[in-house]
């Protein structure tokens, strides 16, 4: 009896707290708006390319730079391609690259921080110096430098936008690991004969992952801005692939003639980034009130 009670107790405590965190997020006005927008754009990234009324890459030289109409809701571009279709098709490229880069950055930075914090001593000292060096490049710069070496393309843009987040995640995880590795359950795991890899990934990782998830969500918006910025600069996704940043850079040339060519992808990316930013802020408010800024 006593055993049943004690084993049921923690579960009963954990479960409602998680549910209520989600409910609190739904009641959080801007957080729930962010959740809605993020889900909408993720859904668009998945199904968007199948919903296009026209083939996003089909050129039509009889209908160049048309204004919005019943047939072409957002008009057409300089090759007569349907702008609405291209924005829908671009959702997959733009959001996909942003999310992929964020996951890659969180993964590499997370493992780096985990290893650095767990190993301690000179490994930690050297690797944190390296983090300082990477953080010495403001914003886009590191990403631009990398692409100057590799050349443009979808792969390079994902890696370059990921690199941007790696040192931040490494430092975040390393800080949490330093606190967690002194706790009793780690000592217990070591006492039971668990190896380093098992302690790092089986015991330390679950203990430090919550802030990483919040932070990763918080930063998806920034990563999307970096990735789209690279494509805008001509260093990322190359035409004719539909991507919001590169669409905007094309549209700037036809601004006088066809402003909708710029408005459509611009509004799409702003709303998507806004959604992820609001969701991240909401998650932070709900899960960790001490972080509120």
């Amino acid at each position: 009896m006593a055993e049943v009670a004690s084993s049921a107790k923690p579960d009963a405590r954990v479960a409602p707290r998680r549910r209520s965190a989600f409910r609190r997020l739904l009641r959080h006005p801007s957080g729930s708006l962010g959740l809605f927008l993020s889900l909408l754009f993720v859904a668009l990234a998945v199904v968007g390319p199948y919903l296009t009324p026209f083939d996003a890459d089909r050129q039509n030289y009889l209908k160049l730079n048309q204004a919005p109409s019943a047939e072409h809701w957002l008009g057409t571009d300089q090759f007569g391609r349907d702008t609405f279709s291209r924005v829908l098709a671009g959702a997959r490229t733009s959001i996909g690259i942003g999310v992929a880069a964020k996951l890659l950055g969180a993964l590499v930075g997370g493992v780096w921080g985990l290893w650095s914090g767990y190993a301690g001593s000179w490994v930690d000292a050297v690797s944190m110096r390296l983090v300082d060096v990477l953080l010495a490049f403001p914003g886009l710069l590191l990403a631009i430098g990398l692409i100057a070496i590799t050349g443009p393309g979808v792969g390079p843009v994902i890696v370059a936008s990921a690199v941007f987040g790696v040192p931040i995640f490494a430092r975040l995880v390393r800080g949490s690991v330093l606190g967690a590795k002194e706790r009793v359950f780690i000592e217990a795991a070591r006492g039971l004969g668990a190896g380093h890899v098992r302690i790092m990934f089986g015991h330390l990782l679950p203990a430090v992952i919550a802030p990483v998830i919040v932070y990763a969500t918080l930063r998806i918006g920034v990563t999307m801005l970096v990735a789209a910025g690279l494509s805008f600069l001509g260093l990322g996704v190359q035409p004719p692939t539909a991507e919001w940043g590169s669409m905007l850079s094309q549209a700037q040339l036809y601004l006088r003639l066809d402003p909708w060519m710029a408005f459509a992808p611009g509004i799409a990316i702003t709303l998507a980034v806004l959604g992820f930013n609001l969701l991240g802020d909401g998650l932070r408010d709900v899960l960790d009130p001490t972080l509120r800024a």
Partner: protein
Amino acid sequence: MLLLYLLRRLVQAIPTLLGVAILMFLFVRALPGDPARLYAGLDATPAEVTAVRERFGLDRSLPAQFGLYLGSLARGELGRSFRSDRPITELLERHFRATLTLSLIAIALAMIVGVGLGVIAAVRRGSLTDLGVTIGSILGISAPSFFVGILLIYVFAVQWRLFPVAGSLTWSGMVLPAVTLAAGAIGTVARFTRSSLLEVMGEDFVRTARAKGIHPRTVLRKHVLKNALIPVITITGLQFGFLLSGAVIVETVFNFPGLGWLLIQSIEARDYPVIQALMLVFSVQFVLINLLADVLYAAVDPRISYG
């Protein structure tokens, strides 16, 4: 005391800057192909390539090469652009002034407008004004600067013809680029000012001041603002560092001849010595600005010991 703190922070920054120099040194060596060829230019003769290899010591070991590189950095030599065959320092000087002017105007805008909006929002907490500022600042943070810039061009240059389409180092040519560059920073500073103010307004000493019958405006000015604006300084300093790199996109949108514009031009031309020098300059600036923000923070807040 403060001077000592500044010196200590400078010394602490040395390993980071050295690391940046190593990374930039490796940057050119990581490029596919022979660095001597890259330095000599794409249409150089074999004899010229050999001459460059000897001049830069590229036939020696990597550590020896790095020593030479550091030596030339210490003498302020950044090499020559192989596109224009002019000393890079000369190129940098010309474009640096443009970027610095643009960033200074933008950071001043961010400070004045951002702090102003943040204070108004905090004082009228819960009002429509507060909601408007909150929505405006999150939009400013979320909208990509290249879209903000294009929108401003469309409204103010194409439709109303108030400003030129392209940026330049004239007053009218700087307005749109500066506002574009400042947009994100205004949002960040406004949001941060608002929450910092609200936090201080909830403190006991503010309630005490009010209870003593001090005029609410005096409480705001002398008790709240003085304390709430201290962390805003750090945030603004950090924003300034990011502005300098945000300039890469804004300068491209407006075809504004600053360092960021030069960087993109150099990448298109594969002018590697210039890319290398620019990355170095951007990161050194960034490190120094962050350091200055820290020192300024320590200087204005008497509670901070120079630890």
